[in-house]
């Protein structure tokens, strides 16, 4: 089994602010992390490796500093790490990114065929959920999105069964390999790598591939030139004028609290009060 896990280094969105005047994203001093959704994908790939053996390769496209994110994945237990990094990739949207990653995976397959590609369901900085499906389409892989559980994988029969969370229930889906899976959050818990993993990570160099090494001949197909998406405006939502009110509970008295809360609701919404009185008569 050879799994490729696509990860992205993202700014910790919990700490990002939009500049009130210029409306640009202020990234200064915001720590870079591995996109949290991608960690569920990585853990799932590592679990498959524990079960069936094989190799887990982590792949990322980004600036040189993204190497830190890949190092982290190695320390979790991945075997190999590839960073595709080139100035030509700057400004890539999801179309250009999936093009570049698909090309890279084709290159990876020249050495070792890929059975599964994992991605997180989306990134926390882009929130598009488009790159995974884009890669699957370009490589002609089967696509299973929002997978919540991998039920079974049979390398011999080249089949995979997953559970997928969908509106109104859980779907059990089966398809053939090779396949790309986007993993849903909360499906597993990232392991705490062994000391041996840390040593291996420290000794494994992250491979850095430029555009040509990634097998992309036309610079116009990636980066800003290969990206039809235009961000026309970024703005921060207006802060809410109304603040939540904290109501103190006295002496653990739920009945009293209910009365207080109802009184507050009715004072704030006199119309509701009138209508209710009318209905009750």
């Amino acid at each position: 089994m050879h799994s490729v896990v696509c990860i992205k280094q993202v700014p910790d969105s919990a700490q990002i602010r939009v500049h009130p005047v210029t409306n640009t994203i202020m990234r200064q001093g915001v720590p870079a992390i591995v996109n949290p959704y991608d960690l569920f994908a990585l853990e799932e790939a590592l679990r498959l490796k524990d079960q069936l053996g094989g190799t887990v390769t982590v792949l990322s496209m980004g600036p040189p500093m993204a190497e830190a994110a890949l190092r982290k994945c190695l320390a979790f237990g991945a075997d190999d790490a590839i960073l595709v990094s080139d100035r030509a990739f700057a400004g890539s949207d999801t179309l250009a990114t999936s093009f570049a990653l698909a090309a890279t995976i084709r290159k990876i397959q020249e050495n070792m065929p890929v059975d599964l590609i994992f991605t997180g369901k989306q990134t926390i900085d882009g929130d598009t959920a488009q790159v995974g499906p884009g890669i699957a389409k370009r490589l002609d892989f089967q696509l299973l999105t929002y997978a919540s559980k991998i039920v079974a994988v049979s390398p011999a029969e080249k089949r995979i069964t997953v559970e997928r969370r969908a509106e109104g229930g859980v779907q059990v889906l089966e398809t053939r390999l090779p396949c790309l899976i986007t993993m849903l959050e909360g499906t597993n818990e990232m392991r705490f790598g062994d000391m041996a993993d840390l040593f291996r990570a420290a000794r494994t160099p992250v491979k850095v591939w430029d555009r040509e090494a990634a097998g992309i001949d036309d610079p116009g197909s990636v980066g800003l030139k290969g990206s039809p998406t235009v961000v026309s405006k970024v703005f921060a939502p207006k802060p809410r004028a109304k603040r939540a009110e904290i109501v103190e509970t006295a002496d653990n008295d739920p009945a009293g609290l209910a009365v207080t809360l109802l009184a507050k609701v009715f004072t704030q919404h006199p119309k509701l009060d009138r209508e209710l009185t009318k209905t009750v008569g």
Partner: protein
Amino acid sequence: MAEKFDVIVVGAGMAGNAAAYTCAKAGLSVLQLERGETPGSKNVQGAILYADAIEKIIPDFRDDAPLERHLIEQRVWILDDDSCVGSTYRSEEFNRRPYNRYTIIRAHFDQWFSKKVQHAGAMVICEATVEELLLDGKRVIGVRTDRKGGEIHADCVILADGANSVLARKAGFRPELDPKDMALAVKEIHFLPQETIESRFSIGEDEGVVIEMAGKVTAGMMGTAFLYTNKESITLGVGCMLSDFKRQTVTPYELLDRMKRHPAIAPLIEGSDMKEYAAHLIPEGGYDAVPQVYGDGWLIAGDAGQFVNGLHREGSNLAMTTGMLAAQTVIELKAAGKACTAPNLSAYKAKLDDSFVMKDLKKYRRAPAIFHKNPQFFTTYPELLSKAAQTLIRVDGVDKRTKERQIRQTFVARRSWWGLISDAFKFWRAVESK
């Protein structure tokens, strides 16, 4: 089969980095273990970098180290509640290369230092906490981390695990820490535009100012406060002895908030954006608090060894120097084909005694005890000084001779003649004795 190295360095602070770098540069196989997410993520300092110490380890550090400003001006302020008496030393000498002291931001500096360590050939592993030392009888043969399969062997372990010195305590190499030997410091980094900082402090690009403060700012506790200019930010903080915090009701952050409201300080940070706050223990017990620093298979460097000169606000340079000396001791033993036994490693103590580290600590040996016993230096005197300055400077028709008498009288009323003489003697003993 456990991994084996010549040296394991625990911690990626100034001492740990100095030790790991020096060992790796000399060709030893080095593993540096750090519990934080990145090297430096747990480290807190004011911070001033003393060029001399780092220069001895990385002579060309100025080429690429992230330095904020070189210091050209030193102010010392004694603060009362709403006034300050101070002195300033500013010199163009400090504006000539090579510069002597710099402000730094540790988060940036430590990343740089760690890269140097890694380029020198040391293996640096983060997010692995060393939980205990592996012992064979009394001899340290390695460490055990919190990771599964975490046993790692080494000929020598350099403990640079910081102020709490957890490993040495666990192994019984040193007694528990005493609150009277530890200071607790809190600090904040406030961002301001570069031009604002430069105009507020009358400094040019890259030039910096240090303000060291004492007096009411510590609310009667033994301690000091500081304010440093960085490129686009101001660092300020206050630290007092832990034993004093235990007795007082004031919390460290309250102290810092009060300091920020002081009329001499508030205008300096006005309009700034606080971006970072941190707290840390500083070992300030001085010479007598330095524990046993070597044994079979182990050495202690940096804050873990209590190497801090509290009076002169020096710590990182002592940390780097002790880290470097620890490394040199191991390198020399390795070169001579000798084992890292306690008698052989005692060369480290000799190196320390011969360096400014122990000489300075010894010079101020009595200072901690004297200041602990005489809180008037942090309470009464700042007030008296401020009153004296007020009386002298205010022009109100009172003749100068009467003013001088009034000042004398307030001093005598608060401390008595004998008290004043005795205080002067104590102060002299604290800073001048050895």
